[in-house]
C-alpha cells in the first residue's frame, strides 16, 4: 500500500517538474522590472522590455482591480493598513494625473506610496512596511471564488438532494460526479476506508478552491491568485498543520523509529543519526513542494501565455501574428488542463500526506510479543 502510494507520488512529481523548470526564467527578468514605471510614455505595449514589464506587472498583486489598465478601466478596492492606528481608504487615492496608481495617498496625516506592489510610508521607504490587510485584487478574486463556490454550486447542490428525494438537480449536478471522484479516487484509496471521512471536507474544499482560482487565472480578467506565493504558502501551511495535528502514534513512530524492531538498538543508533533528520526534514519538504509546485506551474503558465500574446505585437505582421495566436490558443487549451491537473495533484498529494498521518499498522501485537 505504502509502496504503491510512493510510486504514485514519484510519478506525479515527475509529471510536474518540466513546468517547474521553465518558471526559473521569471527570476532573471527581475532587473528589468524598474523600467515599467518609465515605460508608460508610449501608449502601446509593443517592445520586448515593455511586454516583459507588463507581464511582471500582471503577475504581481495590485491594490485596484484593473480590467484594462491602459484605458483606465479599473475598479477601486479598499486599502486597509495598520500603522499606528487603522487606515481604511480607497485605492483610487493612489491614482495620479495619468490614471496610474503611482501617486501618493494621504490618510490621517500619513502619506503612502505603492512601490513594487507594496505600500510604503513615503518618509520611510526603505524602513518598515505598515501592516497591510488591504482587499487587493487577489483577495477580491478569492472572495468571488468563495461566494461562487459557496452559494452558486454547492449550497444549491446540497439543498437539491432534500428537495428532489435523493437526486441532485440544477447547476450543482455538474459538480456531483467530481465530488464523488474526489471521494472515491483521491480520499478513499490514499487515506483508507476508516479515516477518509475526517479529511474529506478539507480535500474537497481545497480541490475546488484551487481549481476555481486556477480557472479564474485563465479568464481575461488578468488575475493570478494561485500563482502567488503567499496563497500557495497558506494552502500548504494548512496541509502541513492538518497532517501533523492529526498524526497517529504510528505516524510519529515512523518518524522517530522508522526501522522498528528490524534491527538491534546499536545498529539503529548509527543509522538514525542520518535517518531521523531526513524524516524530520521530510515533514517540511512535503508541504513545501506543494507550495512551490502550484505556484511555479501557475506562474509559468501565465508567463508563457502572456509572452505568446506579446509576440503578436513584436512580430507586427500577419504571418508571425497569426502563428503566435495559434500557439497562444493551443497553450491556453493546455492551461485549462493544467488548471485541473494542478488542483488534482495538490489534492492528491495532500491526501497522500494525510494518509501517512492517519496510518495505523497492525504490528502492535507482534511488537508486544517479542
Amino acid at each position, binding site marked *: 500500500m505504502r509502496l504503491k502510494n510512493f510510486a504514485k507520488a514519484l510519478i506525479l512529481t515527475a509529471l510536474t517538474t518540466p513546468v517547474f523548470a521553465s518558471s526559473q526564467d521569471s527570476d532573471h527578468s527581475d532587473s528589468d522590472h524598474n523600467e515599467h514605471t518609465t515605460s508608460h510614455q508610449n501608449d502601446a505595449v509593443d517592445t520586448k522590455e515593455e511586454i516583459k514589464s507588463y507581464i511582471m506587472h500582471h503577475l504581481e498583486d495590485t491594490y485596484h482591480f484593473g480590467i484594462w489598465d491602459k484605458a483606465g478601466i479599473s475598479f477601486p478596492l479598499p486599502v486597509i493598513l495598520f500603522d499606528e492606528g487603522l487606515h481604511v481608504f480607497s485605492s483610487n487615492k493612489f491614482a495620479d494625473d495619468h490614471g496610474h496608481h503611482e501617486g501618493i495617498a494621504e490618510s490621517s496625516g500619513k502619506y503612502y506610496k505603492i512601490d513594487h506592489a507594496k505600500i510604503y510610508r513615503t518618509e520611510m521607504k526603505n524602513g518598515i512596511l505598515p*501592516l497591510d490587510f488591504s482587499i487587493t485584487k*487577489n483577495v477580491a478574486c*478569492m472572495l468571488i471564488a468563495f461566494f461562487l463556490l459557496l452559494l452558486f454550486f454547492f449550497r444549491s447542490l446540497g439543498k437539491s438532494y432534500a428537495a428532489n428525494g*435523493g437526486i441532485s438537480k440544477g447547476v450543482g449536478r455538474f459538480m456531483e460526479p467530481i465530488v464523488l471522484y474526489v471521494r472515491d479516487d483521491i480520499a478513499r484509496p490514499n487515506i483508507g476506508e476508516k479515516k477518509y471521512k475526517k479529511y474529506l471536507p478539507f480535500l474537497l*474544499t481545497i480541490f475546488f478552491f484551487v481549481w476555481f482560482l486556477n480557472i479564474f487565472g485563465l479568464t481575461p480578467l488578468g488575475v493570478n491568485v494561485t500563482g502567488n506565493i*503567499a*496563497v500557495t504558502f497558506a494552502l500548504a501551511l494548512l496541509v502541513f498543520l492538518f497532517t501533523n495535528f492529526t498524526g497517529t502514534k504510528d505516524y510519529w513512530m515512523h518518524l522517530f523509529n522508522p526501522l522498528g524492531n528490524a534491527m538491534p538498538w546499536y545498529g539503529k543508533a548509527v543509522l538514525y543519526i542520518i535517518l531521523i533528520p531526513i524524516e524530520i526534514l521530510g515533514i517540511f519538504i512535503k508541504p513545501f513542494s506543494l507550495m512551490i509546485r502550484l505556484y511555479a506551474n501557475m506562474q509559468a503558465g501565465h508567463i508563457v501565455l502572456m509572452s505568446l500574446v506579446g509576440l503578436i505585437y513584436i512580430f507586427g505582421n500577419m504571418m508571425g501574428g497569426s502563428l503566435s495566436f495559434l500557439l497562444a490558443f493551443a497553450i491556453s487549451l493546455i492551461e485549462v488542463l493544467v488548471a485541473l491537473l494542478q488542483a488534482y495533484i495538490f489534492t492528491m498529494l495532500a491526501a497522500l500526506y494525510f494518509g501517512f498521518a492517519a496510518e495505523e499498522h497492525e504490528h502492535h501485537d507482534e511488537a508486544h510479543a517479542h
Partner: protein
Amino acid sequence: MDKLLNDFSLGLFVWQTLLFLLLLFLLKKFAWKPILDAVDEREKSIEAALKGAEEAERRMQALQADNEAAKKEAMIERDAIMKEARDTRDDIISDAKTAASEEGVKMIASAREEIEIQKKAAIADIKTQGSFSFFRYS
C-alpha cells in the same frame, strides 16, 4: 529567492488563510455534509434495493423448487393410486373369473348329475315299458 520573498505579502497570506478556513467551515456545514450524506443514503438504498431483489429472486427460486417437489410427490402419489386401482381392478376381474369358472364347473357338474339321473330314470323307464312294448310289437 529574493523575488519570492519580496512577492510574499503577509496581508494576502492572512486573508487567504482566513477565507479558506471560513470556506472550509461553511462548505463543510452547508455543502459537503448534506451532499455526502445524501449520496451515502442513496448508495445505501441502492444497495438495499439490490439486496432485496436478490433476496426476492432467491425466495422465488425456493418457492419454485418447492412447487417442483410437490408436483413430483403428487405424481408419485397419483401413480401409486393408479397402480392400486389397477391392482384392485385386476383382483376383481380375476376373482370374478375364478368365481365364474367355479360356478360353471359346478353347474356343469350338476348338469351332468342331472343328466345322469335323467338317463338312469330313462333307462329304468325303458326297462319297465320296453318289455311290454316288445311284446306288443313282436
